[in-house]
């Protein structure tokens, strides 16, 4: 099979599908809050990811941010992470896994109507520090935890 032709066909097909759905306004997530920050998610260094997403790599460690992860993750493909804070005016919550090939895992843009809680599961390539960064009232606060991974989750 000619694999180039196949990927070409697939690309043109999905490409046109996106164009059609954008044109007709069918695209589900509306762009009210922010577009997907490509540079930040694609960057391979923590610094670039933080710069790209938040405009700075400096944040203040703050006890008001609770970051819950397991201390030891047997399986790096599924590591539960919960970020909570009582700080007022929270704008974004982001989670970085410092040793991953792409450190930025998830970033949530919150409106005034959402509570500052985010729970999800992430992959960790190996034992790594996990950093939660919360933007509240224009300032950045963070919490860091080390998760020990006994079986990696990022393939290879």
């Amino acid at each position, binding site marked *: 099979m000619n694999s180039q032709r196949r990927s070409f066909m697939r690309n043109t097909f999905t490409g046109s599908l996106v164009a059609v759905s954008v044109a007709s306004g069918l695209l589900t997530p509306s762009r009210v809050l922010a577009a997907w920050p490509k540079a930040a998610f694609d960057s391979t260094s923590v610094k670039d990811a933080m710069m790209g997403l938040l405009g700075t790599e400096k944040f203040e460690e703050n006890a008001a941010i609770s970051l819950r992860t397991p201390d030891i993750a047997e399986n790096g493909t599924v590591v539960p992470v919960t970020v909570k804070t009582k700080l007022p005016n929270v704008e974004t919550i982001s989670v970085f896994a410092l040793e991953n090939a792409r450190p930025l895992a998830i970033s949530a843009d919150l409106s005034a109507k959402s509570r500052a809680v985010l729970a*999800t599961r992430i992959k960790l390539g190996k034992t790594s520090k996990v950093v939660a960064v919360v933007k509240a009232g224009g300032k950045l606060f963070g919490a860091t935890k080390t998760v020990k991974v006994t079986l990696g989750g990022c393939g290879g």
Partner: protein
Amino acid sequence: MAKKKLKVRASAKKGYAVIKAILFHPMETGLRKSKETGEVIPAKYIKEVSIKHNDEQVMMINMGIAVSKNPYLSVEVKDAVKGDTISIGWLDNEGDEASTDVKIR
């Protein structure tokens, strides 16, 4: 029948609602190689998840490849009461999408 793409449950608490969702998606990183052919498996992952409460956007979640397969999300929405509608939709890097509406219970 198409496979279910997401499962959402919203439950009312005092003054807010807890939303729990599982999005069924492979979340392929684009860094893995296939064991049989040795070729890189192309990336396929969810980029954006939008959460609406009664048609008002309350949250926009951007994801990267480090989110686990079949992502689980739990978030909380203020001023939501029993019977309100919560809509969740996702969009992936290839333009595939899915969305669903649930009533808060």
